């Protein structure tokens, strides 16, 4: 409970401040857990193009984890499998 309260306070504080730059997340997205870790998370694989494409920009660049809120461990795994898929010209 304590944690929740502190998060709420954070959000309030953020609303008061102006956005510093374009990439700063909106308040809604602030506390979002990693979509690739946890129990029923999909397996990251270079053959699973449908999953990998979610984490690419329109021009095919890897999206930063601060945008997608992927954990550091999974982001590394993701980057490796994206590069493998690129080598095989799948993406």
């Amino acid at each position, binding site marked *: 409970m304590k944690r929740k309260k502190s998060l709420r306070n954070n959000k309030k504080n953020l609303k008061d401040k102006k956005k510093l730059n374009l990439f700063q997340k909106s308040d809604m997205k602030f506390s979002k857990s990693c979509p690739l870790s946890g129990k029923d998370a999909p397996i990251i694989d270079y*053959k*699973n193009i449908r999953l990998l494409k979610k984490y690419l920009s329109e021009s095919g660049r890897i999206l930063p984890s601060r945008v997608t809120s992927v954990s550091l461990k999974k982001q590394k795994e993701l980057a490796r499998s994206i590069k*493998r898929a690129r*080598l*095989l*010209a*799948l*993406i």
Partner: protein
Amino acid sequence: MNCYEHTLIVKQDKLESQSKSVIGKYEDIIKKNSGKVLKTEEWGLRILSHNIKNNKRGFYFHIKFEGTGETVKELDKAENIDQSLIRFLTVRVKKHDLKKEYFEKKEF
């Protein structure tokens, strides 16, 4: 024994029956060098996402096998010389997932 996944792209100018003989050749190499082929998948003719050496399309093949480092070495040696291949990739995995297939064979 380690688990490996191997993918290779064969040039399109070969007929499909010929491209199948190419994959047979590499299966033999694996078997000769103390390896064991568990599964071969055909992904069929796919459009490459970007041109590689003026190739627009290629036949994709996927082999799942067990073997040692020597097996992979011999495989790479043979594939580096092969003119009919566009690209190949060997990945070591901890465990083979033989059920799941991400690609269905498509005809263009």
